[in-house]
Structure formats: C-alpha cells, structure tokens
C-alpha cells in the first residue's frame, strides 16, 4: 500500500460525491491510517457541483487542502474540466463515462471510464453508482481493504438501512469487475 | 451582477395571442432555487405586478439573508441586500427618503420572525408605508433546514430532531395575526401559492398592497405559506399537499386586516 494517497472526488450534488469520500475515509480509519476529508460546502451543493479531497496516509497529514492529486474520481463534465489537469503525472483519473462527453486527453496519467450509471441500473438502484466507482477505484488503488469499506458502511449507515449493505457490497464488486472489463477492452 | 437582456420568445405561433409570458421585469436567468420552491414563484408574481402597474422605475426592493438572498439577481429593479433580519430597517430609510417610490421587503421566516422581529414590528408600529412580503416556509431554508419560529408543532428539522416541542420552543408564531394588532399595519393577509387559485389570490393581494402603499395607508404585510421541498424532504407535489393538509391548520389563509375594515380579527381595542 502507498504511504500517501491524495484523492479528489467531484461531480454533481446528488451523485454521492461526499459520501464516497467519507466512506473511503472511514475505511481508512479502520485500517489505522491518518485521514483527512475536506468537502466543498455551501449552497452550490444544492444541485450544483460538489467535491471533496480525501487524503489517506501512514503519517500525520499536513495540508488537508492540495492542488494536485494522486488520483481523481470524476463524475461529471464540469469536474472533468476542472480537475483533469490537476492529476499528478503518473496518477489515476477514473471517471463515470455515462456522464462525461469529453474526457481528458492526457497521456501521462492512467485514464479510465467506468459506465457506473449503467451498471447501477443493473443493480436496480441509481444510488449505488458512487459505490461502483469506489469499487473500481479500489481495484486500481487498493488503499484500504474492501472489508474495511464494508465495516465503514455498517457503521455509517443507520440501522434501518442495513438491509442495503449487501447491495453496496455488490456495487463494490461490480466496480472491481468493471475495471477488469475495461482493462481487457483497452488491451484488445 | 447586472444582466438584463429582454425576454425573447422563440416562436410565436400564427393566429395565437400570448396569454401568459414570463414577466419582463424578471431577469431572464436561471434562478438558483430548488425545483418547485415557492420563492421563485413569488418573485415571478412580484415582477408581474411591477410590470402590470408599470412601476419598474419606481420600485425599490430589499432582499433578506435567506434562500432569497439573491432576489436582486432575479428582479430587474433596483434592490438592496439587507443584513439578516434588518430588511425593514433598510426599507424604512429608503421609503422615508423617497416617499414617492414603492418600497418592499422580501423576507423569510427566520429573517423576519426570528432575528428580525424587532425591526419588523417597529417598522409596522411606525406605520411605514412599505410592503413586507413574508415567505413563511416554516424552516430555515438557506442554512439547510433548521427550526424557524414558524415551524409546526412536532415538525422535525435539523435542530428539532425529535420534532418541535412546544413546551420547549412554544407555538409557531402567527406573524400576520400579531402585526395586525399594531395600528400601523394596514393590509395584512395570509395566502398560499400551491394552486392556481392560490397564485391568483396572492397576486391580487400584491396588487392591492401596492395600491394601499400609493395611498400611504400604512404597512402592508403579505404572509405567504410557501414550501421548502428540500428541507421538508418532500417532492414539490408532496409539499403542496402538506401545505393544504398541515400548514394551513396553524396558519389559516385569508385577509386578516384591510384598511377599510380596520381588523377582521377583533382585538382588545375594537371590541
């Protein structure tokens, strides 16, 4: 596992951007890491764009606010336009391909689109889109254990939603599978 | 901050007359409100009235701090953005200095009934010739759904997570009834905008209020029971129903005081 992972997650307000980052942060805590999770907040969240910076590290984190990222999970076009250039060379840019018409054309980073919205339809629950993206991300950057993510979800979700835990696990797995599928696509 | 391109209509079909169009005084921009939010609707009505009375050049509005803080981005008239709760103080000064202009405030329930109750009551007690448009959505919209003085008993908000306990926070404040007690108020009414009928009545009320202002009748207050689907955690349609089924129980709709008829609700004075 990496010493330090600096990640940005960005998209529309309703896409579960903040909870994606938060789940990852929780899982990081369970894995004994230092964490910082910094949301963009304010009324723009209402329908506008939202993003959060999540940092996982084995040592104390200095700045919770950074301008370049090891990885980015991008869920809409405006966020792609805003953040694509800010992924460090060699970094990862994972995006939801259904929502993005014009992905970055950078060649010095790993770019991968996941049709998570479409996949979510297969799970009959649009809200699982963000967990599919998380599954995909963790397949590429295993910064926390999947089990820790599941534990995090169990802690974060109120009891009455615990019946959804299984669905979330499926979503995570679907994300991982999608990555492998994309990889095959790229290779061929 | 200042775009006011005229509203254009793409294709006017032959043989048809325009029966309704977006008021010219409403800026041709996307409003930031949530889908179905009553704020936008009332902005629209206000600008219809300004258009119909032809007083765009004579009207000065005062916006509050609340979801309608950007009202001045949407209404194509001169406006001032007041500090939270102080719209009536701001409007008082404007009107006193320009008594021939039409001056209105546009305020939410947190703004008017909580932090701004002093400025509101005193402006009304002085009988300032202004119109107060009071959007009562029973919640602090902008700050994400905290309890307001008008939150219904038992209603859950982020700061009344177990439902508003009237033992702890008292009953919802009936602003319209309260200010009708003050001799300085002239026309006081409560309306809804969750149906075409309600919208028509509210617009009538607005027209009347501007008319009374012209006659220097004293302060007019129009309380509008509006929705806040986002913070009520409902769809706009559910919110409309909630207004009919719940809100109007605490906040009965209708005129409370008109200048010709000092107060429809008997008060100690007029018994």
């Amino acid at each position, binding site marked *: 596992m990496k010493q330090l992972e600096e990640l940005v997650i960005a998209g529309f307000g309703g896409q579960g951007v903040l909870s994606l980052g938060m789940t990852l942060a929780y899982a990081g805590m369970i894995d004994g890491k230092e964490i910082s999770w910094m949301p963009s907040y304010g009324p723009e969240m209402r329908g506008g764009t939202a993003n959060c910076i999540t940092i996982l590290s084995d040592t104390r984190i200095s700045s919770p606010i950074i301008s370049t990222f090891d990885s980015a999970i991008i869920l809409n076009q405006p966020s792609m336009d805003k953040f694509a250039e800010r992924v460090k060379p060699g970094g990862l840019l994972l995006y939801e391909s259904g929502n993005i018409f014009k992905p970055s054309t950078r060649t010095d980073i790993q770019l991968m689109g996941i049709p998570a919205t479409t996949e979510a339809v297969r799970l009959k629950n649009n809200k699982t889109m963000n967990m599919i993206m998380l599954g995909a991300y963790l397949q590429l950057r295993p910064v926390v254990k999947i089990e820790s993510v599941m534990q995090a979800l169990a802690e974060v979700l109120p009891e009455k939603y615990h019946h959804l835990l299984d669905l979330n696990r499926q979503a995570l797995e679907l994300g991982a599978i999608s990555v492998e599928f994309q990889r095959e696509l790229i290779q061929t | 901050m200042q775009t006011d391109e005229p509203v254009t209509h*793409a*294709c006017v*079909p032959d043989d048809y007359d*325009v029966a309704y169009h*977006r008021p010219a005084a409403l800026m041709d921009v996307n409003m930031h*409100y949530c889908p*179905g939010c009553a704020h*936008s609707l009332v902005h629209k009505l206000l600008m219809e009235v300004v258009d119909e009375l032809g007083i765009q050049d004579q009207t000065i509005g005062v916006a509050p701090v609340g979801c309608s803080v950007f009202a001045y981005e949407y209404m194509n008239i001169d406006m001032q953005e007041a500090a939270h709760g102080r719209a009536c103080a701001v409007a008082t000064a404007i009107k006193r200095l320009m008594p021939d202009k039409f001056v209105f405030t546009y305020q939410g329930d947190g703004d008017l009934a909580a932090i701004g109750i002093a400025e509101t009551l005193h402006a009304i007690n002085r009988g300032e010739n202004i119109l107060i448009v009071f959007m009562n959505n029973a919640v602090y919209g902008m700050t994400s759904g905290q309890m307001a003085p008008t939150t219904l008993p038992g209603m859950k908000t982020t700061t009344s997570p177990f439902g508003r306990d009237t033992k702890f926070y008292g009953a919802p404040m009936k602003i319209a009834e309260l200010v009708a007690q003050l001799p300085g108020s002239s026309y006081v009414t409560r309306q809804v905008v969750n149906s075409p009928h309600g919208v028509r009545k509210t617009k009538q009320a607005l027209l009347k209020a501007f008319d009374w202002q012209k006659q220097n009748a004293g302060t007019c207050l129009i309380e509008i029971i509006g929705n806040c689907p986002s913070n009520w955690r409902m769809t706009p*349609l559910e919110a409309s129903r909630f207004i009919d089924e719940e809100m109007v129980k605490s906040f009965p709709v209708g005129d409370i005081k008109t200048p010709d008829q000092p107060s429809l609700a008997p008060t100690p004075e007029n018994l």
Partner: protein
Amino acid sequence: MEATPTPAVRKPRGRVEIDIQKCKGCELCTDACKKETLVLSDAINIKGYHYVIVNNDACNACLDCALVCPDAVITVYKLQKSKKVNITPPDIKEQLRAAATPKPVPV
C-alpha cells in the same frame, strides 16, 4: 349553425411553450393541468433536470400551468377568437422534443 364544408383539423384553444433549459422538473405544472397537456420528459437539460414537454393538444389556455410554474418558464398562447378553426398547426410537440435533446453545454 353552419355546416363545415371540409373536415378541417380542430385547432387547440391554447398552446404552451416551455423554456426547457430553465425548467426544473418540479411537476407542479403537470399536476395543475386538468387537460394533462404536460408531461416530464426522460431527457435532462444542462442543469441535470428532467424537463417538461407537451403531451397532447388538449390545452385550453387556462393558464394554470403558467401560474404555478415557479420558474416562469411556461408561455401560454391563446387562439385568436376569429381563428377558431384552421389547418393543423406545426407540431409544437415535435419541435419541443427536438429542442429537448440534450447537448453538451459548458457550465
């Protein structure tokens, strides 16, 4: 009463036009319209909202939809009194459907 010589298509009393980029899909208009003239489209606009399109030509220009539309995106037209019967109007529904196809727009 006059007999109509040729069976000309009845022209609807009212027609509506929707500024779809400003529509937020709140469905207050669809609920208000007694003629079920309006319906939410499956497509979304640049703000990410499903917007309203015209469902049928039953509009009677009652204005209800326009009155309740919070975002003032509905224009209502009323057939001129003298022009009650006429040829088929250009299919406004189709026009609107076409306009509604989402295109990428910079935000």
